[in-house]
Structures are given as C-alpha cells and as structure tokens.
C-alpha cells in the first residue's frame, strides 16, 4: 500500500514536471540534455521542461561524461551544457554541429555577444558569463572599519584584522581541493603576475618568477583558512559562507545567488561582492573569464537538432531570466544586474581585463599536472621551486604521451 502511494506520488510529480505551463508551444520530439548542476542550469532546464518531452541531467561530473556521450551515434544527448573550458574536447572531436542556420531560424532574441564563433561558424550559444569575484561579509568589514580589498595583499591585511577580531571561524575561504579546484586557483593567480603557461613550441613555461610569486601568494592564504582547505571545493566554501564561518572568499559568480537564499543561508543580505583581487597593484584581476552555454550534438537527425535548438531558445528566453535573475550573470535579454552581480561585472569590465580561460589541449594537460603537483607544496612537503619543476615534468610526460610534444 505504502509502495503504491509512493509510486503514485512519483507519477504525479512527473506529470507535474511535464505540464505545459509557460511554454509557447508543445515539444513533440524527445530531447535530452547533459549539463553542469548549478542554479542557472536548473532554471534553464526547468523552463525547457515546461514544453514537454524533455529530460535534463544536471551533473557536476558532466565534463568527463560529455565527450563520450556525444561521440556515440546517435548521440546520447541532443543538448549539451558547456563552458569555454569543456567545449574543447567536443570541438576537437567534431561532435557538435555549427548552429548558423538554426540561429537564423529561431535565434531572433539572441544578441551577437552570445554567439560563440570558432573560425566564423557559430558553435555554441552562451547564456551567462562566469568568473571569480571577491565575496565578503559587508557587515564584518564595516564593523572593523576595513576598506573593501582590491589586491591580494589587501585581502591578507584585512584577513589579519578579521582574525584578530575573532568574529568568524576563519577569515578566508578558498577552493583548494586537490585536483581541478586547486589547479584553477593557480590558473587564476599566475596570469595576474604576468605569467604565461606555454612557450611557442608547446613546452611548459610555469617555472618562472611569476610562478614563484603565484605560489607564494597562494601559500599566504593558508594562515587564514580552514586547516582542511585541501578538501574544500566551491560547494564547501559556499556552505562556509552560508553558515557564517568565513568572511571573505574569491568564489565563482554563479555561487553568489546562494548567499541570499533564505532557505539555506544564515547570512542573507550580509554578503557583498567586489571585483576579484588583483595580484599586482594596477594589474588585471587575478581570475579568468568563463562563459556557460549550450551546444547541439552532431550525431542526431536534423529534425532532432531543430527541435532541440528551438527548445533551448525557449529555455534561454527573457522569461526564464526574469524568473531566476539572481542565479547568474546572464547574457540573455531581460537580465537586470543586481547588487550580487556587481563584483563579477566589475571583474569582467576591469582594465586591464582578466584573460578568458585558455582552453586548449595543452591547457587540459597542464591543469591536471597542476592539480596533482600543487598539494605537495601547500602541505609543506616540497618547496616552491621543486614544485614548479615537478609541474613541468608532469606536463612534459603527459604532453609527449598525448602527442602535443615530440
């Protein structure tokens, strides 16, 4: 009896999801999408589901699943949610299709800024920009009379004061989980010191003065963060903020909305956003610019592609954005920037501007090498110079194996 009830409830909730509430048409072609699982994707896929016949998979592991799923014939998903970091394997393998004709047919509401062109062809439609920005507890900074920090030196000076005042558990939060996250921290910091990742012949170039400076700056954070920072990812830092445990963090713009979500946050209205801190005074914010958007699989029929793109446009319309204005820094028309977007917008529009994440085959290898070799430096097992050498060696080994280096 109980099981029956649950089954019934499940069936009803499914029907509820498929109700054609606010969709302008009824979708008849079954469409599936695979994307990351943060707030903005929830909003977009929920809006797409209103048209019916749509299944969304929101998975933070999408980056490892997507290339294989799109290579299948027919592709396992029609729509993919990508970022500039994760589109590379799809472009390289040629598993997504150019969208020029579909944009001409259904993309009247798109702005030119949203169209990601690679060699002149539209390969993706961006829906939002993402970048790191400095999130801070405005109440704490105001109480202690601290100016909003603009550089990492100022961040650490402020952190010292906050630590002395003892108003939070830890002044700083950081996404230094071993692997992808900690590598991203370095990728943010290193160009801020003017470093470049590769020489012209694809060999690594991180063993440089800028590399040492970036490592030193990252290490300084450890005095102010949770001792368990090497297991902390974006979600962990977001929760630390929401529970009032930390006062500042350089975190993804896509996480800002969660601070004011009264259902899970204890610090509603107390977290403000500023541009990402600079590494050197007068330099670009030490961060990278990202975009998130949709792509359409190549290995599907034109009819499916047509339906999928039309559905995606329904998900990326002004109505969706107005319903989830706080969820992202939308590129879609109808977006009204609010206070929580101020930091990310300041980051994106800073002069000099931060670089876009340099997504290439080599960068993927470098990111892995960084993620595996940096923790030993931060745990104190290895000094900075040896760490940079180890990163270059790890990169060289995998680059030779991947055929990038001879």
């Amino acid at each position, binding site marked *: 009896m109980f099981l029956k009830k649950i089954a019934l409830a499940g069936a009803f909730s499914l029907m509820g999801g498929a109700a054609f509430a606010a969709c302008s048409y009824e979708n008849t072609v079954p469409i599936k999408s695979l994307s990351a699982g943060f707030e903005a994707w929830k909003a977009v896929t929920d809006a797409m589901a209103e048209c019916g016949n749509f299944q969304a998979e929101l998975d933070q592991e999408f980056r490892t699943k997507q290339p294989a799923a799109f290579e299948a014939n027919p592709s396992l998903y029609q729509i993919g949610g990508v970022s500039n970091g994760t589109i590379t*394997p799809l472009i390289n393998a040629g598993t997504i299709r150019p969208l020029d004709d579909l944009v001409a047919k259904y993309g009247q509401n798109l702005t030119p800024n949203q169209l990601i062109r690679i060699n002149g062809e539209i390969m993706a439609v961006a829906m939002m920009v993402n970048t790191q920005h400095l999130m801070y507890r405005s109440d704490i900074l105001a109480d202690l009379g601290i100016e909003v920090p603009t550089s990492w030196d100022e961040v650490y000076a402020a952190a010292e004061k906050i630590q002395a005042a003892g108003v939070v558990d830890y002044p700083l939060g950081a996404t230094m*989980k071993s692997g992808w996250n900690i590598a991203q921290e370095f990728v943010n910091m290193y160009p801020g010191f003017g470093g470049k990742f590769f020489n012209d012949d694809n060999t690594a170039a991180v063993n440089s003065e800028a590399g040492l400076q970036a490592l030193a700056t990252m290490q300084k954070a450890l005095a102010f963060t949770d001792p368990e920072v090497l297991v902390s990812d974006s979600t962990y830092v977001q929760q630390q903020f929401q529970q009032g445990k930390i006062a500042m963090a350089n975190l993804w713009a896509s996480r800002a909305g969660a601070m004011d979500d009264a259902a899970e946050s204890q610090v509603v209205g107390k977290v403000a956003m500023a541009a990402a801190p600079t590494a050197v005074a007068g330099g670009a914010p030490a961060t990278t610019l990202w975009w998130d958007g949709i792509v359409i699989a190549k290995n599907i029929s034109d009819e499916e592609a047509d339906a999928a793109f039309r559905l995606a446009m329904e998900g990326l319309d002004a109505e969706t954005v107005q319903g989830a204005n706080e969820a992202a820094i939308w590129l879609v028309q109808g977006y009204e920037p609010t206070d929580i977007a101020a930091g990310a917008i300041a980051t994106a529009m800073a002069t000099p501007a931060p670089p876009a994440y340099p997504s290439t*085959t080599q960068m993927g290898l470098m990111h892995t090498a960084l993620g595996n070799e940096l923790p030993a430096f931060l745990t104190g097992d290895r000094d900075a110079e040896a760490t940079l050498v180890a990163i270059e060696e790890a990169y060289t080994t995998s680059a030779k194996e991947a*055929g990038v280096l001879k």
Partner: protein
Amino acid sequence: MKFKTFAAFVGPSVFMMLLFIAAPLVSVFIQSFQVTQPILERVEVETCTPGFLTQTCTTETKTIPVLDDNGKTMTQTAWVGLQSYRNVLQMDKFWEAVGNGSWNDIMQIDFWKALRFTLSFTLLTLPLVIGVGLAIALAVNNASRTIRGPVIFVSLLPFIITPVIGSLSIYWLFVGDGILTAMMERWTGTNISMFAQAWTIELLMYFYRVWHVAPFAFVIFYAGLQTVNMDTLESAVIDGASRWERLRHVIIPHLMPLIVFIALIHLMDCYRVFEEIVGFRSQAHVISLQWLTYDFMTPDDAGNRAISRASASAMLTMIGIVFLLILPLRRTWRDHKGSAH
C-alpha cells in the same frame, strides 16, 4: 563423468571467464606497451568569447586533432616498449632520491607514494581484521542462544554498506565540524581538523576498513567455530587447559585454513583500495595505486586521458597483488598437497 557433460557444465563459465577476465587483461597488457595519439596539426583559430558587454575575438595558433572523412579523430598507435612503465615508475628520480637518502623525495613520486600507502594499508589492516573478526566470532559463539540471532545481524551491518557510501559517511562525520569532530572538540576543548594532515586521514582509513571488513571475517570464523571438535575441547578442559590455551592450541589451528582464506581475500581487496581515497578526498595527502590508475584514466577538460600509463599502472597493481599472494597461496598449496596423501 562423460567429457560432453563436463564440457556442457563448465563451458559457459570458461567462456565467460575468457571473455570478461582474460580478454580485458590481455588488452590492458598490450595497451601498456602502446601509445595511441591523435594526429595533431597546428592551425590558426579565431575564437570569439563573450565579455559582459561586448565580444572579444582572438586569433591564435592552436594544436588540434585532424578529423578523417567520417568526422572521427585520426589516431596513430606506436609501440613504445617499456616507456609507459618508466613514466609511471620514474626509476631515475627514484634512484636519485635513494642516492640522496631522502625518504621525502621518494614520497614525492606518485607511484612510490601510492605504493607506500597501499602496502601499509594492506598489511596493517590484515591482522586487525583477522583479530577483530575472530574476537566477534568468539563473543557471539559464547553468547546465549536467545540473543545470538540479533547480535549476528547487527555485527553484519557494516559489511552490507557500500564502501563509497560508508567512507563518505565517515568523511561527513569527521570533516570540519561534522558531528563527531564537534563532539571531540567540545570534549577536548581544542580545534580538531581530521582532514588537515596525512596521519589522521590514514588513521580514519584504517579504522573504516577494519570496521567494514571485520564482519566478513566474523561470519567465516563463526561458521568455522561450529565445526570445532567438541571432544578435543572437552579433553583439553579435563587436562586443565585455560581458555587462552584452548584457543591457542585447539581453536586457532583448527581455523587456520580459514585464516589463510580470509588473508587471501583481504590482501586482494585491500591492495585495490580506492573508495577511501575518493570518499575522504584525501588526494592531497594520501593516494593509492588504484586511485593512481583512475587518475590517469580520468579525462581532463580538454579530453586527454593517459591510457597507456593507466594500463601500465594497472599491470603493476596486478603484479603487486600476485607478489602479496605468493605466501598465503604457497601455504594453501602445501596444505592441499598434505591432505591429498
């Protein structure tokens, strides 16, 4: 039995074993000597990225794979001999570190770091699992009949939990201010961070594995205890043997084949330690051989995977298991031969 009947019975299992065990093993073995690379070309690519207001387009030289007429990536496979093994083992760095007499330098090489942990994890938990399993079995065997059923059921529970879920629960109990950390902090009055240094993480891993596997040992030993010869035990009692002496001279020799069996299974299982690494997110401090293979296999954002090194690492793991199993297997073999006479 007629050969035909025998073949009909055994055939399907042999076929399955060849298909699902031998064939993949052979393929991994072959791949560990090969490197498959996409054919790459350097081309000028113009990429446009949205800014918040306007788009920036940059032209740069990118290294990208060449696609064939069907839109598939063109690859070439070359035999590289032991190169992948060299890349995993990094013997030159290893000997250099040995020459410097620096343990810390050896521990900076992923493979040796992983091997150190995997071995100590396997060998330290082995006596604990056998000891704890035997202790529970003896306790249950001596418990009164009325409560025996429920006690067996409760003791078995840790074994039922999926390892990933189990290690995740331990992680959430002890991370930051998880319930147990918060309790210990209140108790001791100091700030405790179990996941900030390697030795506490390792301690939790040992604890978790013993907690998880001891019930398995317990069930086997409990079954074994039912077959202990009562006459021998009674005569031991009459001869004035103490509890300990009875255990030492009657019960344990009787259970020896089972102890070897548990040791075999445990060595094989433990050498593949993986769930704890992922569940405890311990990669910054502690890694295992199996995790190393997984790390090579995991594609990065650009879709690169180190398949050759993963294969080499997998083969090395298998060789390691074989080495570990030689000792208990030899014992079983001797016992087996002995009983045949």
